[in-house]
């Protein structure tokens, strides 16, 4: 019954550390690569997933293991988001730094790099800003591409070698999107018009164009975010 003792010891250890940093719960170092984090989580799942202990444990013990496992899953997600944010920040850096071709689960990437993206706008367009968090405590994974990271909508033709301009901030994807990928080509047309309006300072016009874009491509979360941002900006002005 050593498996039983092991899993209970592990669960108690996790519960005792609840509330501490994510890497502590996963029992990896703070600088662990995405690959190491994933492997650590798989290792925990292999031995301690509550499904594997349905028959050996009492109900209370199973509850303990389940909540410990759920806490570790939360920590895993937190680390993943943090890492993908870092990767995105690194990718947003200008090409002087050779861009990592891709990122995420299968590719080990420099975990500790937190590069702040250049705040300038190449095209001279004012950035549509991502709204800052509304709540007092900062949520997970805002490390690299913080809320002050501008999305550069001018950079729509970014492909291959040139740095991808912007991302859909909502998706946990580590892979960057440029607007051309985030919406249909028809919606992109409206989006470009919205950019022009915004450049002229015509927020209402920008909102209208973005609404049209949303209507053409209602599935694009990128557009919804952009629209929400413009609306917020409009409201904040008299």
């Amino acid at each position, binding site marked *: 019954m050593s498996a039983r003792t092991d899993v209970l010891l592990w669960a108690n250890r996790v519960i005792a550390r609840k509330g501490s940093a994510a890497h502590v719960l996963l029992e990896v170092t703070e600088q662990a690569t995405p690959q190491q984090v994933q492997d650590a989580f798989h290792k925990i799942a*292999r031995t301690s*997933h509550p*499904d*594997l202990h349905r028959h050996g444990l009492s109900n209370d013990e199973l509850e303990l293991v389940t909540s410990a496992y759920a806490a570790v*899953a939360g920590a895993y*997600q937190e680390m993943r988001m943090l890492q993908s944010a870092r990767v995105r920040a690194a990718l947003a850096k200008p090409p002087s730094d050779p861009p990592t071709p891709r*990122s*995420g689960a299968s590719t080990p990437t420099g975990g500790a790099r937190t590069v702040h993206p250049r705040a300038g706008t190449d095209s001279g367009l004012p950035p549509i800003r991502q709204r800052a*968090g509304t709540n007092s405590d900062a949520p997970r994974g805002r490390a690299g591409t913080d809320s002050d990271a501008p999305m550069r909508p001018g950079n729509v033709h970014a492909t291959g070698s040139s740095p991808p301009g912007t991302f859909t901030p*909502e998706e946990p994807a580590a892979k960057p999107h440029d607007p051309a990928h985030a919406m249909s080509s028809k919606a992109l047309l409206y989006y470009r018009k919205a950019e022009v309006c915004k450049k002229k300072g015509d927020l209402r016009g920008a909102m209208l164009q973005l609404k049209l874009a949303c209507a053409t491509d209602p599935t694009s979360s990128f557009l919804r975010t952009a629209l929400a941002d413009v609306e917020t900006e409009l409201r904040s002005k008299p």
Partner: protein
Amino acid sequence: MAIALGIDLGTTNSCAAVATPTGVEFILGQRAERVHPSVVAFPQTGGVVVGADAKRYRLTEPHHVIHSAKRFIGQNIRAPLVQLALTGIRYKVTEGPNQQPIVVVRDRRMTMPEISSHVLLYLKRCAERQLGESVNDAVITVPANFTDAQRQATKEAGRLAGLNVMRLINEPTAAALAYGFGRNQDQLICVFDFGGGTFDVSILRINGEVFEVLASDGDYFLGGDDLDRALAEVLAAECHRTLHFDPRQHPVLMMKLMMGAEAIKCHLSENDAAEGEIDGIDLPNGTTGSLPFALTRKQFEELISGYVNRTIEVTKQVVAQAGLLPEDISDVLCVGGSTRIPTVRQRLADTFHREPNIKINPDEVVAQGAAIQAGSLSGSIISGTGMGARDAVMTEAHSPLIHGGAVAKGPLARPVLLDVNPSTLSIQTAGGYAERLLDKNSPIPIERTRVFTTARDNQTRVEIDCCRGESRRYTENEPLGQLLLEGLPPKSRGDLKIEVCFRVDADGILHVKASDAESGARQEVRMQVFGAPTGESP
């Protein structure tokens, strides 16, 4: 050891299986069929008929034949997509308590879980007859993007059928489990599940016995039914043109055209053209006419290209969400009957630059995976000698594992499924924003706690509105329900610390806890959602 059934409860067809030490045994119907139509009929003669027999009543009594119940289970009847789907059915559905859809058949009012429970009960009885033992435990599959309410309603259907639902698992995950169990490899796969009524894509990493879902997305209102309907509309227009009679107002005729469309669709998957007649069309002047049709595969492909484009678009998005490129995927599994359509396979091959895997049976693989998970949870497959022995005798019901060749010697490690939460879960904060607690594609079971505070001075109660969806505006998301925390000590704003804890269990169902650390006031609920079963009779 108790037998646990794995059930694929589909929109058009269902399938059930049990794991045995040598492979998976399918539950056969009365005519030795492995796949059972998810159709429930309440014929004039009384009683309840399920499966292939029920399908025969579609032409004689279309108002008493309930099909595609999965489209409405756990749905809010006022949702626009549900209203749209209601135009495609011939039986009567009204609004019941809690805005849930209620089926009305000859003054009998039934909830959607009740309808589905008839299908489950039928499968349970077939299994008991075949195995000679009573069957009480089951694992039921649901589409990966099913909501909380839809999952709860499916569980309810299982309960009504007298089954202990050990787990709800996602269909693509079940397919991946059937594919990868016993292979002991490390690979990245894409499961493309295009069924009768729903569409799902999942990207998984299979690492030995660990099956981790990296990303998943889909559309629960997109399936083979929609393709049939598109084709039936064309046939109806053709009928209007040649026979000068619009069949769209006539349920029996439309049903006939739908069935014709389905047959044409299947024919065109094998052949380049379909030509023939649909006869037995009753015209208003009392005569019976027939509708000739001629359709090439190319025309059909053009007709459905909108639907197919949408599936490919979602697939590309999901691959990106997993942080991968299409080239990273080492195998693409085709699941669900609609993947038999050649253009779907072609588009998949173009997207991933590799031929999709069509060796697996698209109708049965999900039930196979569910059976493996059921066997694992009930403990019946670890005590055996390992599944998938190659020398297993092939019978009508029995199939060895998909990869019989790669099976390890001795008992297999139990599979560990790491599934994900299909959409972002948030609560409403001041200003109408949605503050995220759990992200889309987080592993489940998962728990996350965050601390919030009050917005006004001397606030003694807080309402916590929960929602699901990707928008940052609360109102643009789908509301899930409300939690009320009362009796808080009056304090100035910002001083009160309210802990909100979201927990999604292994079935994908959300539990919310809120507590005030100081006064100890706490509330815990399972979200009561619109459209979910209430327990009251309709």
